[in-house]
């Protein structure tokens, strides 16, 4: 998408062997940073974004001109205070904001890679981002943090690099994508692939965009990010700009209008193929399977401190699945804290203004930073 925006980018020349067996090299990773790295390089926090996120965590997103996706959490005087911390976020590979993905132009053909792009996994995403950390010459991160798919990357990061982060905060996530999660992702993918403008993934060759399919995918997914109670309270059966039903298929109800709007703004900023690839990566995520069915083994080597957070109304990544991570960590005596935050805002709670979440997260990060620094002295 949006090729004309000047994003920070590095080219990774080291070959990266993907889980699918293919190898990639000389590929771009787009990223953004906030705040300043201190002289001891001890204040770096790597934030991982979720399915439709990007590197623009805070401030203004130059592409959408809206606030960064985690503006409630990251920024000056925010829970992750950029006056104090150096925050790094990279666009995942498979994404469409400058990192290597299906919309990257293949130099030899001058066309987008499309569905010739290899299948990538959460593991591949994390390994690619580790190259960025090496490039930034950060020996040890203070923290790795992320919600939803970002949380999965947190887990994978610690499993892959057990001594590279002092603190790990996976939020509203899972160690293994459930059947229900896979089902919703498949629904989204089928909506995209059923759009006649998808052209088996080579739509850009025909100057087409499967925007209808992508919008439906987003609408369906968006419902899963909210809670029944939240929806009912916000929309109920309220009508959209009308006093009575029109007896047709226009958006009579506010909820319909809202979802249509969510779908329409999404297609302006997101690539349909990226949606396919990234949801696939999420579906393939099963950290315990990577460790022969024993999730604890993923963290056996690490001294990283963990803080797991879930939300009461999140039915997409419910507390029970977050608790499994806690149980796996406890069973090997790892250093893990856990809280379920009360919120009506569903899975999206981690992105929204949920005061008890923001306070607990901020206080925890700050006091842990203090304790760890004191201990070092």
């Amino acid at each position, binding site marked *: 998408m949006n090729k004309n925006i000047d994003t920070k980018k590095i080219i990774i020349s080291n070959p990266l062997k993907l889980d699918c067996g293919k190898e990639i090299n000389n590929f771009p990773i787009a990223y953004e940073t906030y705040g300043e790295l201190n002289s001891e390089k001890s204040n770096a926090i790597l934030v991982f974004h979720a399915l439709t996120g990007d590197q623009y965590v805070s401030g203004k997103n130059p592409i959408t001109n809206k606030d960064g996706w985690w503006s409630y959490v990251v920024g000056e005087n925010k829970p992750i205070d950029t006056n104090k911390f150096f925050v790094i976020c990279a666009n995942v590979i498979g994404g469409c904001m400058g990192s290597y993905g299906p919309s990257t132009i293949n130099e030899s053909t001058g066309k987008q890679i499309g569905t010739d792009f290899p299948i990538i996994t959460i593991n591949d995403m994390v390994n690619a981002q580790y190259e960025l950390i090496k490039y930034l010459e950060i020996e040890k991160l203070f923290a790795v943090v992320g919600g939803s798919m970002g949380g999965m990357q947190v887990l994978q990061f610690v499993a892959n690099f057990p001594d590279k982060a002092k603190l790990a905060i996976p939020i509203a996530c899972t160690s293994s994508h459930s059947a229900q999660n896979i089902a919703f992702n498949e629904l989204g993918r089928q909506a995209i692939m059923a759009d006649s403008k998808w052209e088996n993934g080579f739509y850009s060759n025909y100057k087409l965009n499967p925007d209808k399919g992508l919008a439906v995918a987003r609408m369906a997914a968006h419902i899963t990010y909210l809670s029944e109670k939240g929806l009912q309270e916000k929309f109920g059966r309220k009508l959209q700009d009308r006093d009575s039903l029109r007896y047709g298929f226009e958006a009579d109800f506010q909820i319909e209008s809202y979802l249509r709007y969510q779908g329409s703004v999404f297609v302006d900023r997101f690539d349909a193929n990226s949606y396919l690839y990234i949801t696939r990566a999420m579906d393939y995520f099963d950290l315990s399977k990577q460790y022969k069915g024993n999730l604890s083994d993923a963290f056996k080597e690490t001294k990283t*401190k963990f*803080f797991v957070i879930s939300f009461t109304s999140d039915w997409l990544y419910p507390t029970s699945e977050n608790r499994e991570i*806690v*149980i796996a960590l*406890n*069973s*090997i*005596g790892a*250093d*893990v*804290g*856990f*809280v*379920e*935050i*009360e919120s009506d805002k569903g899975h999206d709670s981690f992105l929204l203004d949920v005061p*008890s979440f923001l*306070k*607990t997260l901020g*206080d*925890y990060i*700050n*006091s*842990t930073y*203090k*304790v760890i620094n004191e*201990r070092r002295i």
Partner: protein
Amino acid sequence: MKEEFRIISNLIEENTRVLDVGCGNGDLMKFLQENKTKDIRGLEISKKKVQNCLSKGLTVIEGNAESDLKQFPKSSFDYVILSQTLQAFLNPELVINELLKVGKKVIVTIPNFGYWRVRLQLLFKGTMPVTENLPHEWYNTPNLHMCTIKDFYNFCSSKNIKIFKSIALKKSRISEINKSNLNYKNLDSHLGIFLIES
């Protein structure tokens, strides 16, 4: 409170691994962290209290001792502490057994229902006792299974639980409990502190 913390702290060796079950707002954890060991975890059922602890940077897990102690491996802590919480469980015996599994040693403190002030209230007033240490009315108390120092002492002997040390506290006066002074300590102490092992 502080006196109880000091006694507990004295029972613990330095730089050991400790779990505080029912850690509340983390006051005891903080005290031990400053005085004994950095390696301390908490388990607490109230979300609000868990958030308070985490805000202080304490490693605490939201959970229920009756169901969530199982996830910790056997003997994974040098000490497990249960401070004035035993009486609030549905099944105190089960909790004690779980504690003894998870901890190499267990420290249990008990608000003594046998304390003469408590006894007098029931005897003379004919109402359920309300004291500084047991501030709730019968209809809103979280305490389901009140016991006395003697009850707990006898419980340990009948279940073959070793008592390493048993300490009675009255105001800030500390004394040892033993078989011969048990009846007296049971009458004259507001708190019992036991260091036990399976």
